Every structure is written in C-alpha cells, then in structure tokens.
C-alpha cells in the first residue's frame, strides 16, 4: 500500500494506453512518454503494461507502507527520501514507513514513477489509464488526492530476488540517451503530414526553419506552439478523420498544435506534419516558453529509429535479467 501524503499536480495512474476503442471515440491516453514508462517498468521487473504514476510540474509525496522497489524518470524533480537524493533511471529500494518526496520540476515538465508489482487499479476497457474527462479508469477516474491509498500488485520473482540484496540505489543505471529526457537537445524529427500540400510554400519552409515556442496552452491532449502564421494556399474545409499521436494540426488561426496521447480520436484541421514516435516523449517535456525546432525525415527513417530504440530496450532487459542471477 502507498499512501498519498501530498498529491502533487495532476498525478494520475497511467499505463501504455487504452487500445482498440478509437472507433468508438474513446481516447487512447497512457503515459505521455510510453517509452520512458516501458523502461521504468523494466527496471523494477514489471511487464511493460504495468500501471505507474505520471505527474506534472509538482511531484507527489508518497508514504510506502511496505518494502518496495521503485524507479523514476523524467524532468529533474529532486526526488528524495529524507535528506537522501534519489537519482533517476535507477532501481531504488524503499523500506516500509519511508516517504518518497518529489519537488517541483526543473527544466522539463513531467515525471513517471514505477513500483515493482505495478499500481493495482481495475482494468476499464482493457487499460488502467486514467481518462479524466470521461471520469473512468485509473484511480476512480481522477488525479490523486491527499489521503488516497494505492494498492500495489505482486512484485515479480526477479524483483523480489533483487530486492533481497539491493542497495538503496542501484549501482547501475540506464544510459540517458535511451530515454527522451529534457533538455531538448537537437531538433524534433517529423514527417510531412497528409495535408502538407495544402500549405503555401513559405509555410512549408517556415515550419522546418522556424524556432517554435511552447505556450501555456498545453495538456495531455496536445501542446500549442507560438510562432509565425502558417498560411494555406487556398482556404479549404477539411472533412474530419482519424488522427494519430504526433500529428501537427494547424487551425485557422495558424498556430500549430502537436497532438499527444490523450488527443481526440478524430480531427478536422489540416496536418502540416507528424512527429516521429521516437521523439514524442520529448514534446511532453516542453515547458511554456521553451523552444523547439523540427527536422524533416522520411517515414522509413522514422521506422529505422523506432526499431533501433526497440533494440536498445531489449539490451536493457537482457542486461537486467542477467544482473540478479
């Protein structure tokens, strides 16, 4: 059991998302950096789909009622147990009665905390993801509040064996390049969107040349960027259709919006570009006022990056499996 001492801001239970129901208008959701969630679950011996906590800007304070193995990543939240700082991207041993406290995010915005055994909440439509607007999934369909008690599932055999001899903080860590962490080094890679040809040549040039600023208008559905207007060749009305994570849509006002996992299932704005899956997690870390540039790549290149990252994760898993034995 984990008691929520302070909830932080928008701390929710998430997994990899609710799949298979988009045709019924049900948003996918899930951790805004799915790869980070998969890696953190791997570090504590969980299945990738195990539920974990996501928080934004201000992290929670959690009291652990039993010994636990945890791992966290994301922005620099200055996580600590008492006076002891807890490095990110490592397995951390928490003893019964200890409180793990996250502070305010520096540089980035979001963080994720995995616990061996996963956060135990009921499956709704095949997922433990919180869908706030619909009021279902996760912990009672809402962000956590002080006084909530979270149950954990059974830790895996690996986690229990590792916990038996684990130091406070693991001597090993995953290499940060494996994870989409702030600060945002380099450009975010993106492909031309389905309505690329609708935009004026100058708009096409600007999209990839301009440095875009993240606005305060950002949530789990998407991030609105400020910058020059992106005019269309001719005013055209689009018929609503399915969208995808990373879609960069441009409403009539001209300011692009990048869609994140809690996006709607369909949209009716022209899409100038689509961000590569491997770079999506970095967009979840865009604090208001920070800037981002886009670099054009092909669909095949994006698939290559995706597969290379999967191989990275497989190496991490293989290494971990050997570690405890």
């Amino acid at each position: 059991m984990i008691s929520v001492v302070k909830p932080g801001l928008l701390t929710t239970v998430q997994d990899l998302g609710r799949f298979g129901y988009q045709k019924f208008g049900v948003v996918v959701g899930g951790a805004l950096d799915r790869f980070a969630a998969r890696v953190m679950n791997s570090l504590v011996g969980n299945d990738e789909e195990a539920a974990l906590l996501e928080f934004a800007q201000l992290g929670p304070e959690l009291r652990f009622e039993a010994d636990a193995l945890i791992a966290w990543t994301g922005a620099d939240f200055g996580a600590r147990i008492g006076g002891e700082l807890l490095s990110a991207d490592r397995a951390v041993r928490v003893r019964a009665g200890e409180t793990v406290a996250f502070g305010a995010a520096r540089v980035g915005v979001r963080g994720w905390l995995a616990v061996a055994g996963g956060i135990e909440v009921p499956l709704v439509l095949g997922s433990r993801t919180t869908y706030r607007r619909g009021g279902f999934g996760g912990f009672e369909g809402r962000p956590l509040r002080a006084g909530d008690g979270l149950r954990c599932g059974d830790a895996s055999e690996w986690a229990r064996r590792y916990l038996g001899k684990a130091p406070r903080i693991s001597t090993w860590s995953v290499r940060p390049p494996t994870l989409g962490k702030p600060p945002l080094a380099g450009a975010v890679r993106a492909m031309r969107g389905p309505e690329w040809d609708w935009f004026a040549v100058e708009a096409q040039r600007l999209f990839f040349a301009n440095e875009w600023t993240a606005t305060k208008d950002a949530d789990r559905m998407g991030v609105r960027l400020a910058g020059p207007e992106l005019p269309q060749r001719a005013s055209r009305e689009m018929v609503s259709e399915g969208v995808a994570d990373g879609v960069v849509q441009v409403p009539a006002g001209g300011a692009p919006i990048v869609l994140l996992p809690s996006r709607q299932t369909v949209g009716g704005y022209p899409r100038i570009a689509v961000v590569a899956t491997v770079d999506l997690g970095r967009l979840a870390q865009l604090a208001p006022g920070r800037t981002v540039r886009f670099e054009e790549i092909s669909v095949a290149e994006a698939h290559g990056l995706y597969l290379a990252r999967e191989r990275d994760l497989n190496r991490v898993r293989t290494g971990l499996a050997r570690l405890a034995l």
Partner: protein
Amino acid sequence: MRITPVGDSALRIELGERIDEATSQRVHAACAALDAAAIPGLTELVPAYTTVTAHYDVPAAVAAGAPVDDIAGWLSARAELALGKLSGKSARKAANVEIPVCFGGEFGPDLARVAAHAKLSPEEVVKRHAAAHYTVALVGFSPGFPYLIGLPPVLATPRLAQPRAQVPAGSVGIAGGQTGVYPLATPGGWNLIGRTPLRLFRPEQNPPVLLQPGDRVRFRAITREEFARQEAAR
C-alpha cells in the same frame, strides 16, 4: 482509393471525397474487409466520413515479414489487396436503433433558434428531425459521440457563436448539416433541440457504445413523463 501515411504509426485510406451515404457505406465496407483480412501489424481501424485511418504496430509488422525499409509500403500493399474486391456491403450487420428524445423546453434551449433559421415552427422542426433516417458515419469527438448523416437540409443551422461550457449528457444537437447526441457532459457549440434518456456511452460494457459506425438511427419524440420514466428505469 488512395493510401498515404499519417506519420510512422498510421495509414490513411481515402474512399471518397464528399460526405454522403454512398461514401459512408464504402468506408464501413472497407473496415469490414480490412478486419476480415487480419493484416499483421494493423492494430486499430478508425472509420470517418470519407476515410479509414489504420493504426499499426511497427515491431509486429516486422515480425510478420515487413521489410524494415518499407514497412508502410508493405502494409499498404496488403490493405490494397484486401480492398481490391470491395463490394458495397458491410460485413457487420448494421443495427437499427431508435432514440427517444424529449424535444424543446429546458432540454432543447435552441429549438426556437433552429426553427427561426429554418423558417418553420418548432413543431415542424421536431416532426422533420424525427421523420428522417440517419446513418452513423463516425463516432468521435468524445466517447460514443455519433456523427450522423441524413439531417434534412432545411434544418441545417450554424453553430452557436459562443460554445456552452457544459452541455448536459444526452443532449441532441445540430451544427451546420450535422446532427448528433452528446454522450457525456462536455463543452460544445451545437444547437440543442432535445435530450434522450438513453446512455450512449457505458464504459462498463463491451462494446462501450450504444451506436456503432454504420448503424441506422431514428429519433422518436417522447413526453417529459416518458423521459422521466425511462431515466429512472435505466
């Protein structure tokens, strides 16, 4: 038919250009054909007015034999093959659903506005809205929200200039040439003409929606008393 990528995780399959009944039928037939073909790697099909968006999983496609340098092409070719013999028929039997609606009053605060715009009496608006046959073209915007084809053109009314912060669940609305029902209390700018006591979205059930893409819909006017009775009974 044209298939183009939507980034590195989805394909867009175009089956027409205009919002009409024939295109909608092709869209739903295409979904059925793609479902039946069980193409490895395709994870979700999202039908809309003129398109199907097919989401895919990259490692699953590669595991099934897709060449790593042309995963999208490999999936497109299989989709084209599956859609080659596309008939006008949808495999899933479309359900006929009747939606009871209490029109006007506090449930339909914009009925007078729609009537004025159509130059009809409110009673005539209700009569024509309930007499029409509708098809669910797509479900989106919020869970279970049906976009219907079949609104009599005379009832088309522009959206509200200022959207409402909260539209009550069950509200039946008109926006331009579209009509639909709000399954959840959400913000919205459609003209509200009535409310149904039915629950269109129910996450504890599978499928979690009353209306699925392709279903046929009729509206039936009910009294306040019948609304109250049905709401209490659900």
